Structure formats: structure tokens, C-alpha cells
């Protein structure tokens, strides 16, 4: 089963490079991702057996993140098909300046998309830290090409920053890997496989384990987007095609988070949980605050979404750091944030296609100009800022409750204060875009909303709304299991 998960997208990637016909290639993409989703859902019912001495296994935590990834990928694949057929093959003019630029060939794009899925799946299923690292670096490389889809200066700059910063960060995580090996070298079995490490947690060498965790935190933290390590994130998210931004934000960040959580699991086993939790809380609040600084008055709406990702990454870290019930909240938050953020990025893609600008001030009257996207945009705004009855409210509430139950009044105040500030910042931008008087010249020659660009984000938005009103018992159990795996409940 795990093999199937890995092989389907890999094969599809190879096929995409070989196939010459565009439509066929898109079909392959959809079929591969749908197959992947199918297998993932099957894994819910039937737990897959570990492979290769436990190097590859799908535990609850991995299953949770894998499911998010797979479902989001499926919706994004549909959107991507609509997007690709909309993107002209000719050189198009840049949104910012009037230079002309070509797009990356579609074959490479599709192949990289599939490879992206494959590498992310590898991250989810690998329980060997070495494999985890390899997979993580591979995701960076696969996505670099995707970010550089529009071959213009801005996306090139973003790609370069992404590559360099993430590579350096992940290199540090490699160092963490070696430190982990050193920490584990006192015990007889030295393979750094998660289950083994967890089992013999107390025998690990504490200083080296601490150092390893710090390196993982900083290394994968770069990729995850914890401030102040997140610096590549807004650039890459704003310059990539919206569907890629959506995937980066909705899946890749979770992926990196999983990397940190894996090391956290080991630390928990070695009774270093409080050491890690303090760091999670600090980084969480720092990320939220940092995001608030840039969200207020942010002129570029895609960058605003990117910073919002930094904020929510901070919330995830904070939730894990608080522990207890907040861990469950964090897991739920990961699900909700991914759903909503993808909705928003896809809607942003529609807006960009209609208005040809990323400057929020130049976008007016979405609700009257492209109503369906406008509704998504407003709903997404409400959802992302944690307004009930959307799911994010639930997860944030759970986290706040845990914070207050533990008596961290200061943390709670900071948390809610930053959320309020971000709400104000986002409200100003989003509402002015959605409402406002429509400008006729922009509205005349726009593409109308097509089904392929509306249904995917809309379905995710509805899913997020549903999660705010009804938490299916299966999901709830999975979330609890995942939270238990990382020391919460």
C-alpha cells in the first residue's frame, strides 16, 4: 500500500515527461492524484503494514497529514487543469512591469507536480530520519521548478531565495540527523528509525538529542516558515502560480511541520518535552507577531496570504508547544488551515486572472465583477480569521482554552491580541477588494468564472465550514490519535 502511494505519482511523473499530448498529460495528472487519494482513503480503513524494517510506515500522524495533502492535491489538480488550459502558451506580460516572459513547458510542470506529490508522500511515510531528510530536500527541488513557472524576474528572484534559503536550512537539518545518530549511538541498535528511537527514548544522549532537536527545529523550521526563518515564504508564495502557492501553503508547510514533529516525538520519549515546548511557544508567538507586522498594510494580496500562512504556522507551533488539549487543536488547525488557505490561494488565482494585478488597491468590486470568486474570497477571509462557524474558530478556541487552562494568561493575551490585529489588517484589504465599486474597464475583458476554477476552492471552503459545524467521529479519533502521538490528547 505504501509502495502504491509512492509509485503512483512517481510513475505519473515519468509518464508526463514522455507523453507529448497535453490533454493526455492532464488526464494522467488527475488519474494519478485521484488514485493516490483513493489509496490514502483506503489506508483509513486498513492500516498499511510497515516496509523495509520499519523505514516506511504510516502512523496516525502521517496518515493525517497524508490525507490533507492528498485531498488538497486532488482539488488542486482539477484547478491546475483549468489553470493550464487558461494559461496561454505564448509569452505573456508580467503583472508588475510590462516585460514579456514565457512559461515553463507544461510537461516539466506536470512532471514536477507529480514529483512534488511523490516526495511529499515520501516525507509522510518515512520513519527513518535519513529518508525523511532526503525526501524533504527533494520536495524543495521539485517545487523550485514549479515556482519558476512564469519565467520572469520576480519569480526567478523568488525561486533563487527559496532554493538557497531552504537548502541551507535543510542542510542544517542534515546536521541534526547526524547528531541524532550520535545521540542514539550509545544504544545497541543505531538505525535512526522513529519507532526504535521512541522505544528506547531514555537511553538517548540528552545533550546531543537537544542539539539535534534544535537543528531540526531551525532546519525544517525554515521550510515550515517559522519566523524569523520564514523569509523565503512570502516571496515564493506570491510569485508562484496560485495553484502552486496553494499547494506550498496547504501541504508543504505541513510536511515540514511533520519533520519537526517527528523529532519532537523522539524528544518526548526522551522526556525532553518541556524543553521543546518552550521553543515551540516562543517560535509560535514570534511567527504570529512577525506575520502581524507585515499583514497590516500589506499592499499585495498574495503576500498577505503568505504571511497569513506564517501566522497559522505559528499557531500550529504554539498549539503543540502548549500541549495537552492544544495539541488536538493544533492538529485540527492544520487540517482547517490547509483547507482554507488553499481555497484562498485558488480564489486569488482567479482574481489575478481577472484583474491582472496583485496589488490589492487595484482590485475593487469582486462581488459584482466575479461574484463566485468574490463570495469565496469573503468566505475565505472569514474562515481564515477564525470567525465561527468555520473550522478555524474551533481549533483556535481549543488552543486558547488549553492556554488558559494552564494559566498562561500572557500567552493567551498575546495570542488573541495578535489575532485581532491580523483580523483588522486582513479585513481592511479583503473587504475593500470584495466590496468596493467595480471598475468597468477591468471588468469588461475579464474571464468569467469557469467551473474548474470555482468548484475546487468552493468544495474546500464548504468542507471547512462543515468541519466547524460537525467533526466526523473518524476524523476526531484520528486527530486524537495523532495528538496522542506527540504528547497531547
Amino acid at each position, binding site marked *: 500500500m505504501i509502495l502504491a502511494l509512492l509509485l503512483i505519482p512517481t510513475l505519473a511523473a515519468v509518464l508526463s515527461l514522455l507523453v507529448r499530448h497535453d490533454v493526455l498529460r492532464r488526464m494522467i495528472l488527475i488519474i494519478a492524484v485521484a488514485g493516490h487519494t483513493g489509496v490514502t482513503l483506503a489506508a483509513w480503513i486498513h492500516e498499511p503494514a510497515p516496509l523495509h524494517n520499519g523505514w516506511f510506515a504510516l502512523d496516525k500522524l502521517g496518515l493525517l497529514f497524508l490525507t490533507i495533502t492528498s485531498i488538497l492535491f486532488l482539488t488542486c489538480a482539477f484547478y491546475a487543469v483549468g489553470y493550464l488550459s487558461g494559461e496561454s502558451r505564448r509569452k505573456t506580460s508580467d503583472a508588475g512591469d510590462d516585460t514579456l516572459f514565457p512559461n515553463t513547458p507544461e510537461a516539466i510542470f506536470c512532471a514536477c507536480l507529480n514529483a512534488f506529490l511523490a516526495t511529499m508522500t515520501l516525507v509522510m511515510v518515512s520513519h527513518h530520519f535519513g529518508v525523511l531528510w532526503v525526501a524533504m*530536500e527533494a520536495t524543495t527541488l521539485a517545487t523550485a521548478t514549479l515556482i519558476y513557472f512564469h519565467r520572469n524576474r520576480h519569480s526567478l528572484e523568488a525561486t533563487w*531565495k527559496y532554493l538557497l534559503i531552504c537548502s*541551507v536550512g535543510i542542510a542544517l537539518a542534515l546536521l541534526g540527523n*547526524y547528531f541524532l*545518530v*550520535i545521540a542514539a549511538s550509545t544504544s545497541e541498535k543505531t538505525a535512526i528509525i522513529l519507532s526504535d528511537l521512541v522505544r528506547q527514548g531514555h537511553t538517548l544522549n540528552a545533550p546531543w538529542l537537544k542539539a539535534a532537536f534544535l537543528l531540526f527545529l531551525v532546519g525544517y523550521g525554515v521550510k515550515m516558515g517559522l519566523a524569523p526563518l520564514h523569509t523565503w515564504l512570502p516571496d515564493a508564495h506570491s510569485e508562484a502560480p496560485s495553484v502552486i502557492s496553494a499547494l506550498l501553503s496547504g501541504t508543504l508547510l505541513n510536511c515540514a511541520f511533520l519533520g519537526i514533529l517527528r523529532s519532537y516525538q523522539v524528544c518526548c520519549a526522551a522526556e525532553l518535552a518541556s524543553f521543546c515546548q518552550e521553543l515551540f511557544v516562543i517560535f509560535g508567538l514570534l511567527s504570529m507577531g512577525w506575520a502581524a507586522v507585515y499583514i497590516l498594510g500589506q499592499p499585495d494580496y498574495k503576500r498577505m496570504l503568505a504571511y497569513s500562512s506564517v501566522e497559522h504556522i505559528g499557531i500550529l507551533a504554539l498549539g503543540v508547544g502548549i500541549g495537552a488539549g492544544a495539541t488536538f487543536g493544533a492538529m485540527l488547525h492544520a487540517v482547517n488551515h490547509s483547507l482554507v488557505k488553499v481555497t484562498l490561494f485558488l480564489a486569488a488565482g482567479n482574481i489575478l486572472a481577472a484583474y491582472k494585478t496583485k496589488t490589492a488597491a487595484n482590485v475593487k468590486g469582486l462581488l459584482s465583477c466575479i461574484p463566485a470568486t468574490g463570495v469565496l474570497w469573503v468566505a475565505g477571509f472569514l474562515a481564515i480569521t477564525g470567525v465561527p462557524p468555520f473550522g478555524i474558530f474551533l481549533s483556535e478556541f481549543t488552543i486558547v482554552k488549553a492556554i488558559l487552562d494552564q494559566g498562561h494568561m500572557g500567552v493567551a493575551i498575546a495570542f488573541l491580541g495578535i489575532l485581532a490585529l491580523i483580523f483588522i489588517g486582513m479585513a481592511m484589504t479583503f473587504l475593500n477588494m470584495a466590496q468596493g465599486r467595480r471598475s468597468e474597464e477591468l471588468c469588461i475583458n475579464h474571464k468569467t468564472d469557469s467551473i474548474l476554477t470555482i468548484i475546487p476552492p468552493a468544495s474546500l471552503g464548504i468542507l471547512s465550514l462543515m468541519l466547524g459545524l460537525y467533526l466526523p467521529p473518524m476524523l476526531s479519533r484520528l486527530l486524537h490519535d495523532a495528538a496522542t502521538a506527540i504528547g497531547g490528547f
Partner: protein
Amino acid sequence: MILLVLVNLMLLGLSRLRTCIRVVAIQGVMLGVLPLILNGWRPEPHLISFSLVIIGLKGIVFPAILIKLLRDLKEHREVEPFIGFGTSMAAGVVMLVVSLAFGAHLPLPGTAASSLVAPVAFFTIMTGLFLIISRKKALTQVLGYLVLENGISCFGAILVEKQPTQIELGILLDVFVAVFVMGIAIFHINREFDHIDTDKLTRLRT
């Protein structure tokens, strides 16, 4: 060991890109030899083959890619780095002291390896980071990344016994692809901007 230190210091003081690449190549070769040294020259086949792969990649392939890239570029020198070459050397000495202290603080448990390995690895890592931070040319930054990676794989060399070979190969493959992709990116940067000064790549901010 001492050689590695000297190589790092050289990197900090050099301005010609081509020389820098060569120096990194030398470092790569040394790194390839390192597992053999650390394991007492035991001629085990997988060790030797592993060394050969490292030497091949880091000593030959990477420099070749970069040199190839350099031919297409106009610039051959690192001009006006953020931190001057002399200062860089001084900083290098400071870093060396810090890493020695650090190595002393965190003793390697249970290995009989030379006590110098960890500090030197740290020093190499710091040199790599320092190169990335203080230099402007994109190419130098790739070099810095390579040095960083070399430093990290010093640890790999210590632990070559404990790390499965597949993983090591996977890591190498990743690094290879990374350098390759970065090379492509630099190529594109050069084409788009007519230079590879990263301090001009600041359109995306706040």
C-alpha cells in the same frame, strides 16, 4: 584536519571565483578521503567505493558544473563583498576558536575518532554560512552552500559506519540535484539580469 582548516581560511580570503571553485574541489577530495582516514585505512569495499563516489561528485562533478557555469558569466571576481577579505579571515579565526570551544563542550560519545573532527566540521559549517552571508555573487553562495554541506558531511564521515549507505547516497543525490538546480537558476539569473549580484535581487520585500 589542519588542511581542512587552511582550506576554509583560504576560501574566506580569496576573491577569484575560479580559484574558489578549485579550492572547494580540493576540499571535496579531502572529504572523500576522510572516511577512510577515520576508519583507520581499513580497505573495506563499501568504504572505498563510497569514498570514490564522494571524490567523484564533490571533487570533480560539482566543480565541473560550476566552472562550466562560470564560462558563461562575465564576472570572475567577487567584488565588494559585504565583509572584506581581510576581515573575513579574522572572522574565520574567531569562528575557529568558537568551534573549538563548542567541540570541547559537546564531546562525541562513544567514538574513538580524532577529537579534532567535530570542531573542524563546525568550523567548516560556519565558514559556509559566512560565505553565503557575506558575499554577493550567486555563485559564491552556491560555493558557500557546498562548503556548508561539506562540513556537515564531516560528521557523516565520522558516522559512516552507522548510517546506511542508501541514505548517504540519497543525500548525495539530493545535494547533486540541488547544485544542479541552483546552477540552472544562476544561469537564468545571469540571462535575465545580466549579472549574478544577489544584492540586486531585492525587488521582493516586506
